[in-house]
């Protein structure tokens, strides 16, 4: 497992519910109340309609592998080779992450494979949304 402590992000007022949710093991994202369409990263308005009402909701924690590279250039505290991936959530939004708990090889990391959320606590403030191959496909 990487040592994420040197890269640990810090919430802003706009993103605090997202990071607070992860601390409790919940992936909280936002959607347009009228259309139900989710968006990401968090902000107080829907970029498709900045005047619409929006709300926070808990995402399922299920997604698929959209794309990735396998980095051989680790920052300090990271174990190479390792995947830098984008997961497409069931709710239709994308996020950059690491795919963990599997060999970091092109043979294992197949595009569109199902993945599931793993909340990884770094410190009292920040828990990161990592993803792993979904159990039972």
């Amino acid at each position, binding site marked *: 497992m*990487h040592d*994420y402590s040197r*890269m*640990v*992000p*810090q*919430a*802003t007022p706009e*993103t605090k519910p997202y990071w607070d949710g992860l601390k409790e093991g919940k992936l909280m994202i936002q959607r347009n109340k009228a259309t139900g369409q989710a968006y*990401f*990263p968090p902000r107080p308005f829907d970029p498709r309609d900045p005047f619409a009402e929006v709300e926070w909701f808990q995402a399922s924690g299920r997604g698929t592998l*959209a*794309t*990735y*590279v*396998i*980095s*051989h*250039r*680790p*920052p300090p505290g*990271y174990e190479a*080779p*390792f995947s*830098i*991936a*984008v997961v497409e959530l069931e709710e239709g939004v*994308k*996020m*950059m*992450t*690491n795919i963990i708990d599997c060999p970091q090889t*092109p043979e294992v990391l197949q*595009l569109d494979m199902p993945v599931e959320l793993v909340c990884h606590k770094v410190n009292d403030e920040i828990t*990161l949304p990592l993803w792993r191959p979904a159990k039972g496909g």
Partner: protein
Amino acid sequence: MVKPGSVAIVGASEMVSPLGVFPELSQLGLHAENAIRAMKETGLKPSEIDGVACAGASPTEVAYYLGITPKYVDGTSVGGCSFMIHVRHAAAAIESGLCTTVLITHGESGKSGIGRGGFPGGRQGLNAQFEQWAGPTGAPTMFTVPVMRYMNTYGVTEEQLAMVAVVQREYAARNPNAMMKEPMTVEDVLNSRMIAYPFRLFMCCLVTDGGGALILTSADRAKDFPTKPVYILGTGESVETPLVSQMEDFTSSRAFSVAGTTAFAEAGISRDDVDHLMIYDAFAHLPLYGLEDLGFVGRGEAARFIWDGNTRPGGKLPLNTNGGGLSYTHSGMYGMYALQESVRQMRGTAPAQVAGAKISVAHGVGGMFAASGTIIMSNERP
């Protein structure tokens, strides 16, 4: 919209070393030295320059350092395509009468790191919160993230990705200023060190020092200068997202498409009219995205187009004829060097000159598919 051919590039300077370094100059010094060379070429004095644009330094620094009192200032800094966007803004400013003569400068101590400003850090930016902790270490592990989706969608192979670098090396071999001139095969590329699968070392750009400058003025004044004018036919610009993970489509750049479409519409020319093309190649996949997003080939056809030899010396669409960021030079913000090669091709002075070329396109990227600028130019006034 700027009328095609109403503004021209009359001065150009580029500093690129085959060793890749200028250890005697700071970043600001590279801006200034190129500015002075471009002024010398045109016979202009600092007092005759009334517009300043740059990235990698502030226009305040450059204007002050050179003794210029500008009426027009552009500090657009959106990465390596900033210089294309400076050209676009300068053309509009000159045509609308904001100023008469714009100096655009670039200087980057990318290898030596002399007088180079630090990148802003912080833990609360969008990048820090939503990408950086996943462990990318700069462009090689970040700009490359979309490619697996592109290759998977269109069945593009690693060999085809490698071929982009191989073809550009053929041009670099003809260019005395290129850093990498040795002939290279697809096998050589695939045997080079893995950086970020599927990217090997030779699919990634060089890291060098360098700089350049351009001077633009109205086409009507261009005849007063000793240089061969290079007329601006059309320009475009756009941005998409600072987060590569949030691109709308990993197989296409929205910023490329918007900038390219705007530029071609303004120029009123078709893709078939283009004799020479520069597509900013920080990594081997960028010419593939660029050829498709600019409309030179259909979706998924770019890798085959290059594989079949269409872009190599003597091909029907010579591409990245200086050797590109992969083999010529890349100080960090490469767009200025792409513009300089287009100017050389239009002046007829390029080391790998495309015989009879009349129209050149220089297309740039900024950040990781974050921004884009496209400039279409010609040595004939329409």
